[in-house]
């Protein structure tokens, strides 16, 4: 591999000093003079008709500056893909937490009092909470769609019947996963301000400011050119603050316009659990055929997924569940049926992995079951079927780089797989593995393009500025972009600053989702830096009276290659260039679109959706207490092919954090509801992993540069929690011989499985 000065180094996160000292200004910290407090009135019913709303008593509360209902809005439906929701309910509420009215007042107490004085007459309607209930004949219609179906997927590639006929063993089983929350520590928050000319500014902890502006523009009926979104420091997102714009933001703007003063709305955690968009739970039936020589012959799945009351990003999420995991292996015949169904629950949305962890749990569990049925080591079955570089998966994913097989072997060696597997059941100890695949950008999400644009400006003072609309949310993109720029330009890292995202100044960008920022955003930054470098060298070449090709820029100095000439500092060249052109900086522009081989999938969901696919393997070693059902993870290995790792320090951080979220999904997390009401909407009853729940995690990067990614990099953010539940489920099976088919795998469920087997 090519030797780099800054790429591949364990560079400290450039944002950490301000975060370590409390100086970073998060959404929750942002204040404006004269700022009012906004609060939202939410439905107490899961499904009801709104007969009458009376806000007159609320308006009289001292200190109240604005009260709004749907009547104060243009009543335009919106949604990430399907336009089926209003920011404030019109005629009907569809889940407990649905927004109906909002107030802005000089303090929280006045706002609260006003909310309590809004009088609403409801006619409760029959409600449905499971997809089965919602699809049943005679079920209440939540929207207009027949059987309450949001998205129906149905495809067959090859002929699964033929595939199953040629199998030696065919297994079939049903698995369930739970609705879990991103549990970023900073709740949704924003501050909105409207000026007298009709321009609107929104400050918020957002993952996709430019896309959020598009959606906001539709809802507000205000042109995008009059909306400015400024991203504050973000206290965690994991998909929860991405393209699915929750109503909080438009409501805040409506209030600010009506009040003529800035307004801030901050969700409480009760509201977060009741009304923000968490992971889609899915019930999945899978049929898998395998031959005695370890070859998969066919796979068939049926997905039944609960969307909650509005579509949100659900259609894309279920599309991911339907196809992605399959592309790990060579499947000659596959079939899929999926239904995403409206219910009267809180709508689901995007959470790190975007529907992918759900199917990985099922498929990687069933691969272990199938391996046992033919008496093969599941490692060998995975190696035998693993997709390889140069191949195209059954769904059309083109593998331009792929080191899955190497990851499997590396995981086996590092973990002592061959020595440990199946040998320690007496002590209740077990080892389990699962493979993973994920994208680096997903062409299916935004209809018009996938790619990114960045500017790299070298100012006359020598400072290098990176201007991008892609969002830093804690994952370290500011650091990675600075590294790419410094490496490409040949200037010291400390000279490079990545500017905060502000839609008035930053180029349009799709934002942080689909593990796209390092790969696509980074590629745009690379191109911009190359452009700036060339422009600077051209100027210097004219000054030095040599041809530009003879020059190099290294460690901040422009020199004639292979000569003793001292050349000049890049800052000097930038200053002179600026003086020679009216003060303009050297402006490098990087506009990158994914290659044309990357496509929106066709109606059957076939298509090469991403420029690069990342792979990996996780191995869990567990101890299961047969008396209590408690699982202790003793050691965890996470082996990744994410191409070139631009910053291993930050890369490990993505892995460790992702694995621990995966442990939460596997063992402890579930939003519990009764008739649509959240029962555990706080961090005592909704348990996420604490520092006491975390095992040692060994991260291994199996690096091979991808042909398209910047310096060969591919996505790493989401994939890290994609296979975790499956690896743990397989380890539990190895430890105590019970197969858990429902998440989370709580001690109660494990104990019940052990007892059932012993009967």
């Amino acid at each position, binding site marked *: 591999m090519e030797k780099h000065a800054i790429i591949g180094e364990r560079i400290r996160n450039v944002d950490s000093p301000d975060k370590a000292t409390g100086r970073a200004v998060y959404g*929750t910290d942002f204040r404006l003079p004269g700022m009012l407090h906004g609060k939202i009135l939410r439905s107490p019913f899961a499904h009801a008709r709104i007969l009458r709303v009376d806000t007159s008593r609320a308006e009289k509360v001292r200190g109240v500056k604005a009260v709004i209902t749907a009547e104060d809005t243009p009543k335009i439906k919106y949604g990430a893909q399907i336009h089926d929701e209003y920011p404030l309910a019109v005629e009907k509420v569809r889940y407990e937490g649905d927004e109906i009215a909002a107030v802005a007042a000089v303090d929280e107490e006045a706002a609260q009092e006003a909310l309590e004085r809004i009088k609403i007459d409801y006619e409760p309607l029959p409600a449905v909470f499971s997809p089965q209930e919602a699809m049943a004949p005679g079920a209440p219609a939540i929207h207009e769609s027949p059987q309450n179906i949001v998205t129906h997927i149905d495809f067959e590639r090859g002929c699964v019947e033929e595939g199953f006929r040629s199998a030696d063993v065919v297994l079939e089983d049903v698995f369930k996963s739970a609705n879990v929350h991103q549990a970023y*520590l900073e709740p949704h928050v924003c501050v909105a301000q409207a000026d007298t000319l009709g321009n609107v500014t929104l400050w918020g902890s957002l993952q996709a400011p430019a896309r959020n502006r598009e959606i906001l523009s539709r809802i507000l009926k205000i042109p995008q050119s009059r909306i400015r979104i400024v991203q504050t420091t973000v*206290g965690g997102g994991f998909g929860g603050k991405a393209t699915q714009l929750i109503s909080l933001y438009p409501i805040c703007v409506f209030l600010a316009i009506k009040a003529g003063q800035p307004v801030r709305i901050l969700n409480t*955690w009760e509201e977060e659990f009741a009304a923000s968009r968490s992971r889609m739970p899915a019930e999945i039936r899978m049929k898998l055929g395998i031959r005695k020589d370890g070859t998969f012959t066919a796979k068939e799945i049926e997905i039944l997924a609960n969307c909650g009351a509005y579509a949100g990003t659900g259609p894309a999420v279920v599309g991911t569940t339907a196809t992605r995991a399959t592309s790990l292996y060579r499947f000659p015949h596959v079939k899929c049926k999926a239904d995403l169904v409206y219910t009267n629950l809180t709508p689901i949305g995007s959470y790190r992995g975007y529907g992918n962890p759900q199917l990985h749990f099922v498929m990687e569990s069933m691969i272990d079951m199938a391996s046992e049925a033919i008496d093969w080591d599941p490692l060998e079955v995975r190696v035998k079927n693993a997709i390889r570089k140069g191949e195209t998966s059954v769904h059309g994913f083109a593998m331009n780089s792929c080191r899955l097989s190497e990851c499997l072997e590396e995981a086996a060696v590092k973990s002592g797989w061959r020595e440990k597997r199946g040998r320690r059941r007496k002590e209740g100890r077990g080892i389990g593995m699962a493979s993973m695949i994920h994208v680096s950008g997903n062409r299916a999400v935004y209809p018009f393009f996938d790619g990114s644009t960045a500017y790299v400006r070298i100012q006359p003072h020598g400072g290098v500025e990176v201007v991008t609309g892609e969002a830093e949310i804690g*994952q370290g993109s500011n650091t990675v972009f600075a590294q790419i720029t410094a490496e490409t330009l040949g200037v010291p890292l400390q000279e490079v600053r990545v500017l905060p995202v502000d839609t008035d100044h930053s180029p349009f960008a799709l934002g942080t989702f689909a593990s796209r920022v390092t790969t696509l955003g980074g590629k745009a930054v690379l191109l911009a830096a190359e452009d700036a470098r060339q422009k600077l060298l051209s100027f210097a070449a004219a000054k030095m009276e040599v041809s530009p090709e003879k020059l190099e820029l290294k460690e901040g100095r422009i020199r004639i290659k292979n000569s003793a000439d001292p050349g000049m500092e890049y800052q000097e060249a930038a200053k002179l260039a600026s003086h020679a052109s009216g003060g303009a900086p050297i402006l490098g522009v990087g506009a990158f679109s994914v290659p044309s081989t990357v496509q929106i999938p066709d109606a059957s969901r076939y298509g090469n959706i991403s420029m690069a696919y990342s792979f990996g393997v996780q191995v869990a070693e567990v101890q299961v207490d047969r008396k209590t059902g408690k699982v202790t993870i003793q050691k965890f290995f996470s082996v990744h092919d994410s191409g070139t790792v631009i910053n291993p320090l930050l890369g490990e951080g993505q892995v460790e954090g992702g694995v621990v979220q995966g442990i939460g999904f596997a063992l402890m997390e579930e939003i519990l509801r009764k008739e649509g009401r959240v029962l555990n909407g706080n*961090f005592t009853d909704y348990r996420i992993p604490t*520092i006491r729940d*975390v095992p040692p995690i060994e991260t291994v990067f199996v690096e091979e540069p991808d042909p398209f990614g910047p310096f060969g990099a591919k996505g790493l953010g989401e994939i890290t929690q994609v296979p975790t539940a499956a690896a743990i489920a397989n380890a539990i099976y190895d430890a105590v011989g019970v197969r858990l088919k429902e998440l989370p795998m709580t001690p109660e469920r494990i104990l019940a499985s052990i007892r059932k087997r012993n009967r």
Partner: protein
Amino acid sequence: MPAIQVEINGIPRKSFVEPTLMLVDFVRDHLGLTGTKKSCDSGNCGACTVLLDGKAVNSCLILAVETDGHSITTIEGLQKDGKLHPLQEAFIEFGAIQCGFCSPAMILTAKALLDQTPYPSEDQIRAALAGNLCRCTGYLKIIEAIKSVSERMR
């Protein structure tokens, strides 16, 4: 409104506060020290941790008036003579910060631990930080950072 005399980051300050005002809101909204974060507002996440007479406490569970006559350290008070506290340095160096929303609280809790127990075992570190949630890092780099500071003090 009751008057309270509190030493904030080494400086005595007199304030008039509502008797119902929580310490977290006093620190953030009245003193403008927004390095102290507010998330769950119910003592479950630990993001609002400050040091009260050197002990780590959830500032969302304590009334401002209760701190009368006591000293409070927030993250803004950790730097000395323009230099970062060794724990701040270590959190940066070891990659123990991602979104950073929990970081001020983590650092202060770790400081309270090391002030009391300069050479903690890993179990002691885990026990001390069990009330501080982090969703980004997976905690391991936080443990590494704290250990490194402890080792450097030896």
